[in-house]
């Protein structure tokens, strides 16, 4: 899976652009399988991408179009998929989204992710065999949100500690300088 470190991410979205271009020859956020959520009010930028979660709810595809590949990545069958949108609704982190009738989800570029190569901040890294964390606790919260809303919720959850660290450091700076 792709490991994300929001403390390092500057929010430039180069990962999105590299992903979109590598998979389609065009550049657009909808075509990207990694999407950076930017929360300007909090100073946070979080790349959201399939974390290969323990539950894999997306595999409950009614058409049987989604399966797992050798690196644990989600593989979408173009012949079976009807773009019904079930996978998009089932993913609690907004890491699958249909664009131009194709579910866009990280395929790890076959083991050599372009986004990781492109990131000049070291904010994302490829971890073969990683993943497996449970997202079950967040499924209820995700209900009723669109994919962007789910990404924002996931981004907020995963950066709480980072934010409180900044605020703690602020107090220290004030005392120390």
């Amino acid at each position, binding site marked *: 899976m792709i490991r994300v470190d929001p*403390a*390092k991410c*500057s*929010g*430039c*979205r*180069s990962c999105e*652009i*590299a992903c*979109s*271009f590598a998979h*389609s*020859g*065009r*550049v*657009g*956020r*909808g*075509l990207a399988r990694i999407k950076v*959520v*930017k*929360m*300007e*009010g909090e*100073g946070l*930028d979080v790349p959201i991408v399939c974390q290969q979660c323990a539950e894999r709810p997306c595999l409950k595809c009614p058409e049987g179009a989604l399966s797992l590949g050798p690196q644990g990545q989600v593989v979408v069958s173009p012949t079976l998929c009807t773009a019904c949108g079930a996978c998009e609704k089932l993913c609690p982190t907004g890491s699958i989204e249909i*664009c131009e009738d194709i579910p866009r989800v990280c395929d790890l570029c076959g083991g050599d992710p372009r986004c990781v190569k492109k990131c*000049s*901040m070291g904010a994302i890294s490829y971890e073969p065999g990683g993943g497996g964390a449970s997202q079950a606790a967040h499924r209820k919260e995700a209900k009723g949100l*669109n994919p*962007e*809303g789910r*990404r*924002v919720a996931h981004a907020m959850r995963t950066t709480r500690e980072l934010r409180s660290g*900044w*605020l703690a*450091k*602020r*107090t220290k*700076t*004030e005392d120390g*300088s």
Partner: protein
Amino acid sequence: MSLFGYAGHVLRVDLSSGANSRERTDPALVRECIGGRGLNSRRLYEELPRDADPLGPENMLLLGVGPLTGSTLNSAAYTTVSGRSPMTGILGDSAAGGFLGPEIKAAGYDQIVITGKAPKLSILVIADDHVEIRDAQHLRGLDIWQTQDAVRRELSDNAVQVAAIGPAGENLVKYATVACNNNRMFGRTGMGCLFGSKNLKAIAVRGTGAVSIADPLAFMKECDEVERLIMAHPEYDKRNHLGSTLLMKALNGLGILPTRHFQEGVCDWVDEVSGERLAEHMKVKHKSCFNCPIHCSRYYVTDEVEAEGPEFETLCSYTSRIGARDLGFALKMNAYLNRMGVDSLSSGETIGWAMECVQRGIYTADDFDGLDFSWGNTETVEKVLHMMIHREGIGDLFAEGTRALAQTMAQRSGRSGERYALHVKGLDIICGDPRGIKAFGLTYAIASRGADHLRAEPFFELTERYDEAENRFGTRDAADRLSNNGKAQLVEYSERQALLTDCLTMCKNIGLSMDVIDFPAAARLLTAGTGMSWTEEQVTTALRTVINSERLLNIDFGMGPEDDTLPERFTIDALPEGPSSGQTVPVTDMVRDYYRLRGWNEDGIPPGLSGEKS
């Protein structure tokens, strides 16, 4: 002919009637102006009534992006906002990075052309081909950050890109800004005031399209080369670490850091307010614009505020330029000005001017509603900013800009401080003392939007690349900041390179200061990107055409050769001390040489759009 690169459409919105229409981007037109600022300036030249009141419904408000905006080309993210400037009365425009430009492209537009005036405060919502003018009266008085939040909440989409004004824009402060992504500012020439005059609180854009490239493999090859040049650049690490704030110490070292309103060029407390100190103590994270490998901006947290920025111009404007020595205060002001939507340079100049006038005994606190304009009085700074944003008391005059402020104060009191109003054509001088960087002096004098470095940013004169100077400009002196020789050549070249950067919608730090994009590379990028065939000559011709259109437009607005000058502070008073001590700018000679190189006559008049040469 189908265009790649370009989104393919221009959106026209008339705020008075609420009507909107789409038209195809004209391939013959973009051949002559490429895109971005070029397309905007050309549109103004063709369509703007020359007698348009800058604050009237007949003025145009343009948002332009370029053929490569939102593509894989590093930093191709900028949007240019243009119109007749409410502040200067001549061409007004301002560009910002962030993430708005790529979204405009994704929504399907190369340019948004806004005319008229909404009957009540409104927001313009653009989601692909859905265009809607919505009531925004409930957003009145909200600052820029609150506005972006409210708009995103209202549209239930965090990915909407918002260009918004704050209270300053609503109150028609002449140098009000527009912001995208909260802290990326369209800062200069009062484009926020133009928004306000049209009752336009914000533009919200969401696009689901993608940028298509004519020859993706060839284009990628060119983009990879651009990225390689950036990453291998000797200044990469420093720029990535400090961004433009590196200039605090750099300019101080050259003796050209504006201190106490340009009376000095050396600030003895620079270490207290430097970019280095900011990075070490307050910065918590890098920030960057769309697709940029230089993560030059920063998010900072202090005990009072948190925000992105500041850039050098803001940092200097609210420290050394006004004699203040408190970094925390400058960071607080950065956040405040970003929220309220005020240009830090122009507001800082009004304050610096008042402080110098008080120091010289021209005015006293009695002339300024009792405010004590002693150097570095941060309490006064906060008070007068609040008054100017809300146009209260003397703040109402400050909100008109330094030129008008100095004129009105002189008329009222019979005592004139106009000599110390540091502007060209009504736009305040940026933070870089031209006496120690001569090509910058010429740039401020001739820039088509008034005193401004970004119209040419001849950073080359600071790089000590003497051999390259001889190659490009025929004299090694062009790389010597204190020399007057070769500077007209340097500015003529850099002005085209700056415009090219604006047309490709790249960052000036990359395209220009780091000298990464030249004309042959631009021709290759444009050819592979758009599918039109571009030669170096065609690129150069387009750039010259745009520069001449801007000039002709300004002449129509009443500008003459006498306006291509600098305040006496820079032409008569020599810098008193430091590494640029004793220097002035021989601006008249430089301007004359520049006209000649441009192919303009001695009155600075170009030959006209058709049949132009050189």
